[in-house]
């Protein structure tokens, strides 16, 4: 201890304190402040950059998943559309078929009716013609029969016989 005290140099202590304080203030102004500030700023920058990168990554992921969802949706929709189109096609075909059937049926019935009408007309005509023919024959027959007097009376007689007076 005594040696330490005897070794102690006031001058050295004075200069050491003075020089150290000078160094401290100079370094503070020209070295530590700019360095620490720059380092802090840089660290903050790096942190922010990392954060934003993470955010962007998440966003991208979200986008990707929504993309695939969109694709799936589109695919589903296409499928749906195709199905619908097919169904519609079938429907249209079926409808057309039934319509055609109906039309055909209508044509058939009207044809039948016409045939019926024509037929009855023909029968009527035939009837009249047959009656005409009968008249003509009867005329001829009558003309022939009336020429003979006996025959006439026979005929009237037979006719009178045939008619019952009831």
């Amino acid at each position, binding site marked *: 201890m005594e040696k330490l005290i005897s070794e102690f140099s006031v*001058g050295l202590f004075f*200069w050491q304190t003075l020089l150290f304080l000078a160094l401290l203030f100079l370094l503070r102004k020209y070295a530590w402040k700019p360095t620490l500030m720059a380092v802090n700023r840089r660290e903050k920058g790096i942190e922010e950059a990392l954060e934003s990168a993470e955010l962007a990554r998440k966003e991208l992921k979200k986008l990707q998943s929504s993309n695939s969802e969109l694709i799936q949706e589109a695919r589903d929709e296409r499928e749906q559309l195709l199905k619908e189109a097919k169904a519609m096609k079938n429907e249209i075909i079926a409808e057309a078929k039934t319509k055609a059937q109906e039309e055909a049926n209508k044509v058939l019935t009207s044809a039948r009716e016409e045939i019926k009408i024509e037929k009855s007309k023909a029968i009527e005509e035939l009837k009249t013609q047959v009656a005409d023919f009968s008249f003509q024959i009867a005329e001829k027959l009558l003309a022939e029969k009336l020429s003979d007097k006996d025959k006439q009376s026979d005929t009237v007689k037979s006719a009178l016989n045939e008619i019952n007076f009831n």
Partner: protein
Amino acid sequence: MCTLAANFKTPYSSRSMRLKIVFSFVLFALIFNPFTAKSEHGQEAGDSTDIRAEIKADILHHLQDAHDFHLFTDETTGTHYSFPLPIILWDGGLKVFMSSKFHHGEEVAEVDGSFYALHHNHIYKTDAEGTINYDDNDHVTNAHPLDFSITKSVFSVMIVSIIIFLLFKALGDGYKKSAVPRGVGKFLEPLVLFVRDEIAIPNIGEKHYQRYMSYLLTVFVFIWFINLTGLTPLGINVTGNIAVTFALALMTFIITQVSGKGYYWKHIFWMPGVPVPMKIILAPIELLGVIIKPFALMIRLYANISAGHIVLMSLIGLLFIFNNWFARGAFLGLTLFLSIIELLVAFLQAYIFTMLTALYFGFAVEEHDEHH
């Protein structure tokens, strides 16, 4: 001296750049240490007790501060290779002159009618003949003026401070151009980050650490750099001076007390959580602790650096005591090894000083909810 240099140039073909630097640094220190300059003389004399006394004197001389910057001495011609430093005395007025006036302590310097002599690195006021008077205990009784000389240590502190300032200013300026350090900043920025992330924040806490960063950084860099200069062959021993470590520890002490908050003082004078008799017993102990903490800082740094220098110099000294190449080789290896250890110690002591300083600051600014 030169043969040693030649022999030891081979081992550092290591690819690692850093290792290379360390090796060349230590080798440089070994080869050009002013102490080794005495080798020629030692071998010729062959008188081991003489060499021992000389080594001891040299070590003691080295550990002390000096008034001139001694590089080496040519023993055969007795020429000292050194450069003088200014002497500043306060002796009823300011007296400034160059240390060359003392002629390495061999002559008495006369300034404005007063005579001064250099005796064991202390300046005493003497008569014209330079008589030094002793009392019964071999203490010098001559009056000594207040010595504010730019001694070797002060000079070293100045040079190292300038180097530190230029280096770290370059780091600070570098950020004006880009956010990423360039050049020397690539090496220096990790140091700043180390002090912030490993020393300041863990010990002081996120909330208060910023206020102390300038001091912690300066103390750390200063002690480390000045310790490293102690490993150069220039034979500088700044942190092995008690005045220097005292100045540093005193600053830590003052800052700690000034920033001490209520909880800190309460912890000292009225320890919470213990019974009243214990509180009374603990108060003086805690109060003593306030002084002991910076005192330990001062002694630790001083003792570690002094011891390192003594051990290294003694080992180098042993190289000249043994006249046997095997022993010399072994001691050279040991010296090399210890030099590398000292390189680590230089850093470690700077780290410990800064770490403990930060810890004391942490105690001072501690708030109640953070503890117990």
